[in-house]
């Protein structure tokens, strides 16, 4: 892994305009794969749906995906609900009840995309 990085650097130093993928296609692929392994994969929604908790989470995700209430990243779900309510957009009341019930858990508290880096 280290050797590969070194080669990569020296190539970019000499020929600026050529991409590394032009000559080292296989190497690039291997690096990409290694990088992906490091990051923890976001939880897939399939294995949690079905039971009651999954249903609630699905509802909250539906709320996240509703474009009328504005962007959802970077703020908590409750903050987003309150903003929508402040501007008279009538967000669903049951979402707030659900959020207040489960406000300590980050799974409920934060938006669908919270695990992705900005």
């Amino acid at each position, binding site marked *: 892994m280290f050797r590969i990085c070194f080669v990569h650097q020296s190539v970019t130093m000499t020929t*600026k*305009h050529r991409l590394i993928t032009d000559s080292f296609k296989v190497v690039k692929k291997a690096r990409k794969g290694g990088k992906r392994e490091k990051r923890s994969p976001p939880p897939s929604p399939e294995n949690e749906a079905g039971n009651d908790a999954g249903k609630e989470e699905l509802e909250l995700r539906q709320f996240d995906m509703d*474009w*009328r209430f*504005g*962007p959802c*990243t*970077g*703020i908590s779900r409750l*903050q987003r609900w*309150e*903003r*929508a309510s*402040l*501007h*008279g*957009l009538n967000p669903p009341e049951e979402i707030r009840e659900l959020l207040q019930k489960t406000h300590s858990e980050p799974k409920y508290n934060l938006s669908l995309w919270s695990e992705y880096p*900005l």
Partner: protein
Amino acid sequence: MFSHLSVQKEGSSLLCRPTSEEQEPVFDRESLAYTPCTDRYKVGERSFSRQYAHIYAARLMQMRPLLTKAAQQMWGSDVVISKLCDLQTGVQCCIVGTLFKRMDLQPSILKEISEEHNLLPQPARAKYISEADELILEDELQRIKLEGKIDRDKCVTGSVIAIYGTERNDGKFTVEDFCTADLPMQTPRPSLSSDRFVLLASGLGLGSSSADSMLGLQLLIDMVTGQLGDQGEQRSAATIARVLLAGNLLSQNTQDKDASTKAKYLTKKTQAGSVDAIRLLDELLLQLVASVSVDVMPGQYDPTNYTLPQQPLHRCMFPLSSVYPTLHLTSNPYQANIDGVRFLGTSGQNVCDIQKYSSRDSHLEILEETLRLRHLAPTAPDTLGCYPFYQKDPFILEECPHVYFSGNAPAYESKLITGPDGQEVLLVTVPDFNSTQTVCLVNLRTLQCEPVTFSAFTADDEDSEMNISH
């Protein structure tokens, strides 16, 4: 006005024998009811983890009902207001959205760091508009290119407007007309019995390499504190109830860019340039606050945060003057109720930024435009630094001010405008004191404004005498 007040006198009290101590007249300074309304410009928690999408979303949420009303007033209550996603080709309709101007010359950090382009650093420009600019309207979901009766160069990114027209076959929107939210509602001004003045000044520029303005500045302080002129002038100076310093108290020269890039061991013993300037400011403020209430707003070059809203300068920087209750350190958009007259203004960053990114040049014209857009700083956060608000956009005007000002303008200008619902607003561009030696006096009773110039021994007109009351 102010100049007339000083003339009403029987004889000069200067060229005569001094009266004894007890008979010296004492002029009581007018004091006014003062309520600061700067809570909306206070930033409590400082979280910079959010993106700026929120401020645009909140802005559109807040402005949409206002613009819907404005559009209905302009094009009739049966006008079809639709979203961009429901747009049909060839059908006339009205759309509310945020303007975005794509500008080739707009400086971009991404462009600068991309080595592959091998670009030369862009020269500093006065304006970033070009012929290739494109105007785009965005709503919550989509965007569309605009053409037709809308002046591309006059518009700026971030303004929320309503447009009326049709979409053509090629996917562009032909604008037939557009409208802005226009002036908000205004609470009526109480009628005052006597003339009272608020003095507006900006750009004192302390710590600059040239000390030209120091004599003018001292004259200004002496005039306000009643140590200048005869008794008539002192009497009129007592009607100045408040002094408002609108930013750039320190000069740009105090911001030493080298200090941050030089090695630590080279700058170890050096003192920041702003230390002496702040000390000088403290001494000048001390003379003022002993006699009159002073509001101090920070500006672009002052030692506080850079992003709008700028928070008040810290009290600990003014050990001498901060013991007086008459010193008010305020935030940079400034909002206050002075004797029932509502003041709103900034230190000029918002106006200067619009000047750079549009074809407009006059600060007064830009100031009026921001009032019509009902937004203090439409170009924030695009080209103007701004805190990432998410819940509300605090720069949207909710109540119409009576006096709307911006500081650090190249010249003094003022204008009284009347809104559609009878709102009366005095627009003032407060000139940069360091270069113009001019301040303005606003009469709270008549809402008139007058410049006062302290031109002492200027190079261009040597024969003109010191002229303190216009």
